[in-house]
């Protein structure tokens, strides 16, 4: 145990630390409590499945849930292969001194810090205008794919690097080609880490607003194709709170849906990661 010196300075700092932690906890419980308090009464099954009426003041979020899942679907379908391919390349074919690998890793580090609004500008310029996709679910999904890519690659690369080199040696000694080693041995072993990373990427994509305002658009109808504009949950909250007088109750209810989705996603990811670390410990 640490020594307990009873001088005043120690006491003052102990007090400071406990009170700032208490303040922070109170603030955060306030936010969560406020969310539940205001939104709970609005929330029912009907809210989840019906269409918004009267600019969203009444009705539910059915089409918005559909649009959100389509945007996220496009995002993951695009980001997954690129992320997986890049991560395998970085983990299995490059070492620290490899120039191409270093360049890619450096550019991904920077990309991870680019603010989401800048991704929005880029998505608007490239997907909506240059490629002519307009305000659409496709543009929004592609923009989000660019945004989650650095994180996806980083977690996937880490889970490949966590596999011991014994496995690669053993597979090579058995005469497996590199593609077999990667697909049949390393990929299954890295899968839990990869899943956890994808789920976290998914969480980041769902939470995103700024990158979507001028790529996927505002339209709250049920989307008919990927080229339709579609409103995501987060944009719905923003629009109800800022632009619709009397939209707050439904904004709160939507926020509860969004936050619960995120909590489920994060719990799943950390559960998978825990499973992975326990199953990777070999009996000795």
């Amino acid at each position: 145990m640490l020594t307990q010196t009873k001088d005043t300075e120690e006491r003052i700092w102990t007090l400071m630390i406990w009170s700032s932690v208490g303040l922070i906890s109170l603030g955060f419980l306030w936010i969560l409590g406020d969310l539940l308090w205001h939104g709970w009464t609005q929330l029912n099954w009907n809210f989840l499945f019906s269409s918004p009426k009267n600019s969203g003041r009444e009705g539910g979020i059915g089409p918005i849930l559909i649009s959100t899942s389509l945007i996220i679907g496009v995002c993951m379908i695009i980001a997954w292969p690129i992320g997986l391919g890049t991560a395998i390349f970085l983990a299995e074919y490059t070492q620290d001194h490899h120039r191409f690998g270093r360049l890619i890793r450096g550019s991904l580090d920077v990309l991870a810090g680019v603010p989401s609004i800048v991704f929005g500008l880029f998505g608007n310029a490239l997907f909506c205008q240059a490629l002519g996709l307009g305000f659409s679910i496709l543009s929004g999904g592609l923009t989000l794919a660019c945004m989650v890519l650095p994180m996806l690659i980083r977690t996937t690369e880490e889970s490949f690097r966590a596999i011991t080199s014994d496995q690669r040696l053993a597979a090579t000694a058995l005469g497996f080609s590199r593609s077999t080693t990667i697909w049949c041995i390393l990929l299954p072993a890295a899968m839990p880490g990869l899943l956890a990373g994808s789920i976290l990427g998914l969480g980041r994509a769902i939470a995103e607003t700024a990158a979507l305002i001028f790529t996927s658009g505002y339209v709250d109808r049920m989307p008919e194709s990927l080229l339709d504009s579609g409103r995501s949950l987060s944009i719905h909250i923003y629009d109800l709170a800022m632009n619709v007088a009397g939209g707050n109750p439904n904004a709160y209810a939507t926020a509860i849906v969004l936050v619960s989705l995120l909590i489920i996603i994060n719990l799943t990811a950390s559960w998978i990661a825990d499973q992975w670390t326990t199953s990777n410990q070999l009996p000795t």
Partner: protein
Amino acid sequence: MDNIQPAPHLTKTEAQLPGIQTWLPYQSTEACCEPVAHIRARDLSICYAKHLALQRVNLVINKGCITALVGPSGCGKTSFLMSINRLTDLIPRCTVTGQLQINEFDVLTPSTDLLHLRRQVGMIFQKPTLFPFSIKKNLELPIREHGKHARKTWATLIETTLQQVGLWDEVKDRLDQPAQALSGGQQQRLCLARAMVLAPEILILDEPCSALDPISSGIVEDLIVSLRGQYTVIIVTHNLAQARRIADDVAIFWAIDGIGQLIEHGPARTIFESPQHELTSAYITGARG
């Protein structure tokens, strides 16, 4: 176990292996240790970056025999072993020069079919290295990858191989359970089985018993002895008593000025009873190393 001498186990080997003639690549009908050269190293040197790890090894390894490579740590035994199946390719900045032949087939030329080579040369590591799948899948992966057997024969092949390593009765009821849940000795025998399903001619073993407890170690050692005659076995070991018990031929490696060299090589009895090199005699009497 000390009473095991080169001859008696032959009959045991033959008796243990009913009905596997159909796929065994090499069958001994004679005494195992006819001096028929199987692997031949000429002036083989191995460099890591600029450091010379092994210098000019000239060594002939006989078919069907157990050859033990012994010597203190850091004298290039494992490097030599890894050059036989070209695993040295995976080590950054490692270069192998000289000549290494298996039968009449040159291993070190760039055009070598590596997958074929590694199928002919099975390797076992110090630490059992099973893949994180079930017991069955561990054995099926190499069979499927090399595609020589029809799928319906896989089960029989797996059974015979597991019997050969004496693991069948222990695991036949849990083939679908994770391989990494087995005990260390069982894992090592499963590794051996996994190498053997590919019907290699040569087995190279890198200290296969050193990570095991004494009992498992004894079982694995008996298993290795039972392989004499069917496979050319090369085993790296730190355990001189073990080399004395199981080896037909012994090669002593030594690091002189930090450079690994082969200092003596010959039949086990000659090496242990009348060593030529003074380092060898110091080593086997326990004065050095």
